[in-house]
């Protein structure tokens, strides 16, 4: 059980969006940038320059750090005693993604498989679908969750992005903390009676399982 209501939670998001309107626009543009580079044929695959994949990874990492530091650290913390732990989780994931991006960026897949389409779909949902559903079903403007600002949108967007990456050992590693974040999102969905966020949980657990399955398949082929 959580010590805040759905109304209070949306009120918090509305206040953050109002306070940080400029950053909401920047986050939206950054999300579009990541989505476009993931979708674009020549930039999305494994033959694309490493610098592109590095930038993509850093952009996603920045979203996790911002969601942790700003949403959990600044806005949720006064209302929820567990917010510092969530902040630590999101910042840790951001640092992990940044490290991977610097050392050996996650490259896109060579083929547009159904898994890649699923990943793209989740990215679109995180970037546009979730905010629209929030506006339709929630209390209204400006209470919507934006990628790079709020944890659920960031989680589902990242899980989608991971599904578009080449499967290797770094993929399950970077999908582990999103799975934890997704599990938390599911608990919150249950506690606040906001069932559309169970999709976040499904995406997060699914991304981790897909990453592990991809790793196993690749290992089997190499043998």
């Amino acid at each position, binding site marked *: 059980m959580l010590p*805040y209501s*759905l*109304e209070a939670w949306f009120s918090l998001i509305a*206040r953050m969006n109002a306070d940080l309107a400029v950053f909401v626009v920047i986050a939206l543009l950054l999300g579009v940038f990541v989505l476009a580079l993931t979708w674009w044929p020549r930039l999305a695959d494994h033959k694309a320059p490493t610098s592109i994949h590095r930038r993509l990874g850093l952009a996603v990492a920045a979203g996790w750090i911002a969601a942790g530091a700003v949403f959990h650290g600044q806005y949720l913390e006064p*209302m929820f005693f567990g917010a510092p732990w969530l902040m630590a989780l999101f910042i840790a994931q951001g640092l992990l993604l940044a490290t991977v991006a610097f050392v050996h960026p996650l490259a896109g897949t060579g083929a547009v498989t159904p898994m890649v389409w699923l990943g793209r779909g989740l990215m679109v949902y995180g970037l546009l679908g979730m905010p629209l559903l929030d506006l339709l079903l929630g209390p209204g403007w400006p209470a919507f969750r934006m990628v790079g600002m709020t944890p659920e949108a960031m989680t589902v967007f990242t899980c989608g992005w991971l599904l578009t990456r080449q499967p290797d050992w770094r993929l399950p590693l970077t999908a582990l903390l999103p799975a934890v974040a997704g599990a938390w999102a599911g608990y919150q969905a249950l506690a606040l*009676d906001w069932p559309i966020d169970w999709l976040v949980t499904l995406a997060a657990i699914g991304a981790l399982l897909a990453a592990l399955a991809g790793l196993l398949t690749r290992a089997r082929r190499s043998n």
Partner: protein
Amino acid sequence: MNTLSPTRRAFLRQLGTLLAGAAAWPSLTLAGAAGDHATPSVPEGVDAGRGPLDAAVPGTDERIPKIGMGTYITFNVGPDPNARETLAQVLRTFFAMGGGMIDSSPMYGTAEEVLGDLLAKLEDTDGLFSATKVWTRSTSGGEQQIDDSLALWGLDTIDLMQVHNLVNWREHLATMRARRDAGEIRYIGITTSHGRHHDELERIMRDEPIDFVQLTYNIVDRSVEDRLLPLAQDRGIAVIANRPFRRGQLFDRFADHPLPGWVRRLRHRQLGAVLPQVHHCPRSRDLRHTGDFATPAHGAEHGRDVRTAARCRCAT
């Protein structure tokens, strides 16, 4: 902004539940309790002059209203001005109807801050009985939480300070006694909820000089009747029952059932008024009536509740 229709109803119902004033006055509606009107008001049909039921704090001459108000979730609204205005109206109605005890905790996020802000703005808070808690494993953190609560509520003295869910209770009780001696706390208590830690709670009640104990007690959760309530009576410890309607679940459970005949004969005929009255029911009294709630479709669990409710009509 728009409203969240289904959840807003639940929100209002929870506010009404927290007020729990329905148990003390006839014709109190949840909408009235939650404050749909702009001015402080006593809901239509309520005899405010009659005042609420009250009870003495054991060992003292002080009497406080039996119906109190919790702040978990409902007062944790942050700076939202609309939510604060709604809560201000709840508080106005609460005090206008003779309410007294308000219970909070540092665990409840911004609840204490919101409460303090609203209390400072209200014209009339006579009868306020402030109750809050210490909730931390750290002893020095407990000292800090007491300081914070005094500041957030805007009070020089907290009426009741409780150890929340028995966390680090030995150290916190020692701290509270020292603060009571310094005049910053009047009563000391300890809390639990959801039926947890009853064995340890019983030991504390036997061994420690405390004034209040807070525990979960409602028509479904009745395990405290076996040992804890008799012990509290023997030791002269005041009892606060939390979750009297299981966060509103009991309203959902019984909402679609007609009230049994024996309830229709009561002065207080609403479900919110009927359910808490089992609190005073001796278990040994077995009554003949089995209640109209019970239907085959609702199975044994409902049937058990209904029999319990029926058994306890003696309390009315």
